[in-house]
């Protein structure tokens, strides 16, 4: 079903062909979801993929749902809205293949929710009534659970516009990214539930939902809930549900489509990690979850790896050599210690990397990314990082 032409090497990176992972993404994927725990370079990785795909001639959108404005930072943009901003590649010295472009967007949860309600509300009057409802107001403002649903809802909306060949979705840290996987299904479950049907039926027969809910004189159960929460909240729940009635069908339709999207061939997951014990634990946890759900893991990336120093720079004879070189035993000792620390770190990283590979590699390739000498906060930095993932070093 792919209409992507054969991939050609961008002139900028001539001499280094695309990696298998990159080829696969360019050929098969419309959506790549980057997931993993906090502080492993997930946003940076997403942005790097966005940059490389744009250079390869794709129209790319990088969408972050992270509350912190990290992607803005990595891309050197001042500020994001709920709309896409073009990243001016040419100004920064990049020359994409014809047609290639990079945009970035940071999701505004509340705005997305409001937009969706506005899309589905049958009458302007409904919309106003919903917006005045206190449950709705609190729900659309503060509610963690629904954020992940909003993220995929937005993803779906953007996909529908066909404005992009590839969307890279950066997700919040692991435990929430799991919510993110479950959210559409939870929502469908919610809408399909017998209880809702029961209520909606009562709406249809009685004309007013609150009639049934608030007929507390005859309902022991409702009276007890009233004791717990205060009776007015019941009226508001009732009003909320009945106001939402026309929206529910639209929501359900969208939820079904999103659930399909997550398992579709067009979409793949990249698990991002770092070579420390807790981060590898999380990567394994996430990878198992993907397998369990039948979702497509394209790769597990391990950022921030370090290279070992050569043996003769840290062995016993190095001490004497360094003393001669530095003319100061204290400085030589400090240099030796720094070298030993570094190699101990590398050893520990390799242990973690092997542990990850042992379990994951039969399912998905593991790609190690070495830490750069500089903090990544520019497109050049993103390029240097992405080079390790998306290009093959044949030298």
């Amino acid at each position, binding site marked *: 079903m792919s209409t992507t032409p054969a991939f050609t090497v961008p002139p900028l990176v001539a001499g280094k062909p695309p990696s298998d992972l990159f080829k696969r993404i360019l050929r098969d994927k419309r959506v790549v979801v980057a997931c993993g725990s906090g502080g492993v370079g997930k946003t940076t990785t997403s942005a790097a993929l966005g940059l490389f795909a744009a250079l390869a001639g794709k129209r790319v959108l990088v969408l972050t749902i992270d509350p912190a404005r990290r992607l803005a930072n990595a891309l050197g943009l001042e500020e994001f809205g709920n709309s896409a901003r073009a990243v001016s590649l040419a100004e920064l010295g990049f020359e994409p293949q014809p047609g290639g472009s990079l945009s970035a967007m940071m999701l505004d949860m509340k705005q997305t929710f409001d937009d969706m309600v506005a899309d589905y509300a049958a009458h302007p009057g409904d919309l106003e009534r919903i917006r005045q409802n206190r449950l709705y107001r609190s729900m659309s403002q503060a509610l963690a659970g629904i954020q992940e649903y909003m993220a995929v809802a937005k993803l779906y909306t953007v996909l529908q516009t066909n404005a992009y060949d590839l969307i890279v979705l950066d997700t919040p840290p692991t435990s929430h990214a799991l919510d993110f996987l479950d959210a559409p299904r939870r929502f469908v479950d919610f809408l399909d539930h017998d209880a809702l049907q029961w209520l909606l039926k009562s709406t249809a027969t009685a004309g007013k939902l609150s009639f049934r809910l608030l007929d507390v004189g005859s309902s022991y159960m409702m009276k007890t809930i009233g004791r717990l929460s205060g009776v007015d909240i019941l009226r508001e729940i009732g009003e909320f549900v009945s106001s939402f009635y026309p929206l529910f069908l639209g929501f359900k339709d969208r939820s079904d489509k999103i659930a399909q999207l997550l398992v579709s061939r067009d979409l793949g997951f990249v698990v991002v990690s770092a070579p420390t014990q807790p981060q590898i634990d999380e990567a394994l946890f996430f990878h198992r979850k993907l397998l369990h759900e039948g979702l497509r893991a394209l790769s597990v990336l391990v950022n921030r790896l370090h290279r070992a120093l050569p043996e003769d720079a840290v062995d016993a004879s190095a001490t004497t050599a360094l003393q001669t070189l530095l003319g100061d035993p204290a400085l030589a000792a400090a*240099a030796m210690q720094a*070298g030993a620390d570094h190699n101990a770190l590398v050893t520990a990283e390799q242990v973690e990397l092997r542990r990850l590979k042992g379990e994951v590699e039969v399912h998905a390739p593991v790609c190690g990314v070495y830490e750069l000498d500089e903090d990544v906060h520019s497109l050049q930095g993103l390029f240097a990082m992405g080079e390790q993932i998306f290009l093959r070093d044949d030298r």
Partner: protein
Amino acid sequence: MERLFDTRVRIVTGKGGVGKSLVALSLAIVAARRGKRVLFLETNPPESVTRFLGKPKLDGEPRLVYENLWMAGLIPSEAIREYALMTLKFKALYNAVFENRIVRYFLRAVPSLSEFVLLGKLWFHEGERSGDAPKYDLIVVDAPATGHLISWLRVPHVFDEMMPTGPLKKSARDMLDMLLDPKRTKLDIVTVPEEMPVNEAIEIAHAAMQHRLATRGLTFINRILPPLPDALVATLHAGLAGADGATQKRFAALERTVATREHWRQLGEEYLQRLPAADLKRAIRLAKRAVPIADEAAVMALAAELEAQL
């Protein structure tokens, strides 16, 4: 600093991946060693710190793990049940109402209810008594990371505004009383000397004030690289410049490692300068380990380092 442990509740947060859980646990260990009865509460039991300690996972019931230190997880489904039982008083009534699937369905749909009851559980433990004294002198909460922390602590405000009357409103008021009383609750922030974690630390501090989440407590700066001797980078560079080819080749990578490490350290210090001066001055600084292994020994070492500064 002894007053640190006079606060009843310390909520420890920060950006994901900064070592928030281990810092929170170390804080609890130090207080327990000083004879306080401490309850350590986790908000994300699936990623429990107990895996580093070689202990079984936590459930909702506090369990004595070290001398004076109890640990428990904050688990929404358990907390909802307990909250309802507490409010309704009778188990039979609870069963009649809450085991009803339609009711359960709507409780699940009430936004933020699980966040709300988790705070209710914290409030409950804070008020728990053993004889005449509080059951726990100190409760350390390993709280969610920035974004979710802010939503979480805003929930009682939302309920307080939303509920005209009734037990939920009363609970919301109780929680706010606890959270906003600086003698009872402090919000501690963990960060590391990197750009984003520092930005988030500032963001939390700002939100704490703007949204009246809780009173700011301490700032912990974790994973600080120990500095190298001042002259090392320059001397090594100069020495290698005048050395023969074989020596240059031998130590080129070491030179780069030392220079990169110093570069990251200085960059980290620059990022830290963004923290408000008062926070930076009072911050507790914790060194980065050469090898980042998270096990019981590492937790105890962190606790010892923390204790030395209190």
